[in-house]
């Protein structure tokens, strides 16, 4: 009964309206009996909540307005970058925690069972799977499990380097500074490749390569075996499908959509706790704030572009347009917490055509926060379409309808005319035509490369751990929702020096040259497919002719490998 006294002495006096006495008196009046235990607890809870609610609402309001300020003026004060740094620390802590949990589980299992659980996997499998796991999460285990202190080294350098070992007790600053060292993009991509798999660049080569090693010079019954293996390998994992699905992360980023290893998360209460805190932060604070900022910023942008559109044509209008549009886009980008780092700004495009790799619908917007472009794109309906028509009034954007053949020719002519005026802003084109997931780059369409002018390649690389911007399914609104409930959108934009088509160079050769330059800069795999292949992955039937052509190429390749030998061995069959 002492809890009752506790309630009476401490909680009840703190209440503004004395529900306890009210209920008590009501009961006594109507039922002539004492209220039960459960009812008393309910009464306490309800009164506590109702009195605390105004305070909670105030706190929420303060946090909300702070976030709003960060989103709007945050760029100048570099508040967004600070936010990213905080996130970095949280993720590195999560990564280490997951490994610790996994190891604890393993030790517990071994001690309780006295032998390895998994009867069919031998030692090679076990250690290999461990190293893959650690590599997956960006760390590399260095010690065996029997030691108390497990040492880790962060893969800040090349995976095979033996420097930078840190003990588990080292401070988070040291770990964080190691991650900071990975500025070079080339090292980044080295970490992303899972060793032992056939990387996409080599998938095609391995098919050809094994033929060349073969000593059979006539058709023997084992000649098809290489094709069989290649086919089954494609069934198990193929480059095209993996280029159109979400990129795999190196560390877990506290989002439910990127959970790969559920067991470690379920077993560690701290991790689960962090996950739920993150969930609340994202859905209750970040998302409503972002929706509000988006509405504000879009109306703001439409208003300004409308006003600029009313100005008479001339250099003044262009200057105002450049300034207004880039500020307006930055405001919109704030609604998604976009942090874009621009490199090599001396190569910033001016006039001519700028080409970039395509990952998301907001690519153009991100690029436009640093420089003013005239966009070329497909006319769409809905939210995006309204936006496009608002922009079209203030500058010479080119919108077209892809299915209309006449429109395509008109577009090429418009492009050419645009490039004849060097004072106009550069045109921004995404020659791939479809969104790819930022690990690979498709073949470019040659339309933009037929025009004889300076081409400025731009390479965009997103960091998916803060939020994946790749759009491959669902409508635009669900895409917006998923981006708004991520942490942030972080990307690196590299401006490459301008290129020009050679005298005798064909447009497709030039397009491949530009593509290689972009791919090498940010470490993308160059796929030997064009955008039609996306329709094959997602179910439509547009690519039959391409399929037949490619099959013929493979058949010719096989034929070449059966070609006549140099010896006059009667066992060898020669044919013309």
């Amino acid at each position, binding site marked *: 009964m002492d809890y009752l006294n506790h309630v009476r002495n401490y909680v009840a006096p703190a209440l503004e309206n004395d529900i306890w006495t009210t209920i008590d008196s009501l009961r006594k009046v109507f039922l002539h009996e004492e209220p039960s235990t459960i009812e008393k607890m309910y009464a306490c809870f309800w009164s506590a909540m109702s009195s605390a609610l105004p305070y909670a609402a105030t706190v929420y309001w303060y946090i909300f307005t702070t976030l709003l300020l960060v989103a709007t003026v945050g760029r100048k004060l570099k508040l967004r970058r600070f936010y990213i740094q905080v996130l970095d620390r949280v993720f590195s802590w999560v990564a280490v925690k997951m490994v610790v949990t996994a190891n604890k589980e393993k030790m517990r299992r071994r001690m309780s069972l006295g032998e390895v659980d*998994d009867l*069919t*996997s*031998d030692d*090679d*499998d076990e250690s*290999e*799977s461990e190293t*893959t796991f650690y590599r997956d999460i960006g760390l590399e285990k260095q010690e065996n499990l029997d030691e108390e202190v497990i040492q880790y080294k962060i893969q800040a350098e090349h995976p095979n380097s033996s420097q930078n070992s840190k003990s588990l007790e080292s401070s988070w600053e040291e770990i964080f500074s190691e991650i900071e060292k990975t500025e070079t993009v080339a090292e980044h991509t080295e970490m992303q490749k*899972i060793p*032992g*798999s*056939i990387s996409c660049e080599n*998938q095609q080569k391995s098919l050809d390569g*094994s033929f060349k090693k073969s000593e059979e010079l*006539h*058709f*023997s*019954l*084992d*000649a*098809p*075996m290489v*094709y*069989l*293996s*290649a*086919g*089954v*390998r*494609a*069934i*198990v*994992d*193929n*480059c*095209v*499908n993996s280029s159109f*699905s*979400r990129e*795999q992360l190196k560390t877990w980023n506290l989002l439910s*959509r990127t*959970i790969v290893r559920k067991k470690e998360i379920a077993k560690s209460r701290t991790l689960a706790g962090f996950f739920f805190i993150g969930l609340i932060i994202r859905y209750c604070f970040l998302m409503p704030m972002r929706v509000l900022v988006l509405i504000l910023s879009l109306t703001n942008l439409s208003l300004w572009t409308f006003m600029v559109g009313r100005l008479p044509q001339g250099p003044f209008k262009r200057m105002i347009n450049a300034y207004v549009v880039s500020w307006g886009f930055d405001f919109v980008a704030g609604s998604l917490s976009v942090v874009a780092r621009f490199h090599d700004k001396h190569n910033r495009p001016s006039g001519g055509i700028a080409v970039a790799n395509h990952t998301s619908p907001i690519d153009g917007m991100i690029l436009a926060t640093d420089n003013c472009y005239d966009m070329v794109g497909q006319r769409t309906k809905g939210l995006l379409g309204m936006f496009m028509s608002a922009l079209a009034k203030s500058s010479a954007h080119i919108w077209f309808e892809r299915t209309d053949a006449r429109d395509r020719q008109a577009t090429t002519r418009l492009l050419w005319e645009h490039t004849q005026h060097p004072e106009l802003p550069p045109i921004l084109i995404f020659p791939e035509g479809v969104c790819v997931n930022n690990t690979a780059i498709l073949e470019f369409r040659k339309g933009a490369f037929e025009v004889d002018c300076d081409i400025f390649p731009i390479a965009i690389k997103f960091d998916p751990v803060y939020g994946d911007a790749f759009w491959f399914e669902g409508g635009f609104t669900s895409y917006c929702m998923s981006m708004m409930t991520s942490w942030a959108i972080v990307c690196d934009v590299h401006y490459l020096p301008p290129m020009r088509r050679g005298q005798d160079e064909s447009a497709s050769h030039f397009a491949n040259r530009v593509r290689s330059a972009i791919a090498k800069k940010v470490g993308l795999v160059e796929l030997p*497919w064009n955008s039609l*292949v996306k329709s*094959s*992955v997602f*179910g439509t039937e547009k*690519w039959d002719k391409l*399929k037949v052509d*490619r*099959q*013929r190429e*493979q*058949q*010719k390749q*096989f*034929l070449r490998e059966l070609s006549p030998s140099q010896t006059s061995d009667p066992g060898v*069959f020669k*044919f013309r």
Partner: protein
Amino acid sequence: MGNKHSLMLQDSDIKSIQADTGFSASQIERLYSRFTSLDKGNSGSLSREDFLRIPELAINPLGDRIVHAFFQDNTTSARRAPHTSDCWVNFKQFVRVLAHFRPIKRNQENKLNSREEKLRFAFKMYDLDDDGSITRDEVLAVLHMMVGENISEDQLISIAERTMLEADVDNNQMITFQEFCTILERTDVEQKMSIKFLK
């Protein structure tokens, strides 16, 4: 890749597949994730179209034969269990066929990925009517698939006949599995018919 479907794969299923094929638990989970991503209709099974939607497989000259291998297993098991159809492949059948391509490990028991099983898989590639022997016409048909229209019909026939002469030791106009194995004695089947499965 997304992981929503791994909830549908029970531990008991994983254990039975492990015992059957020799894959480790994490490999099976990874294959299941792949299986569900190929299964566009979310029906829990794959059709021929699902396989041929993979671009690299669709342009493979032997793509159709490889896909047929998955469904061929069905027809044999259909004689035992009539409710399995030959238009769909479920996950167990999917993994069974893939198990043939597991690398051979020396200190492990290899059931589906032994040298003989791998050779049997290659044999079934040629054996179009599944009667247990390869005729000259079947060799010709496979040559057609692999070479296409880049050679004349006569040259193809000569190649096919040459191959039959070499392989058919007892001259009964067809190659049995034994003769097939004999002629491929010196081939490194382990290396050619194995692929690396990620954990």
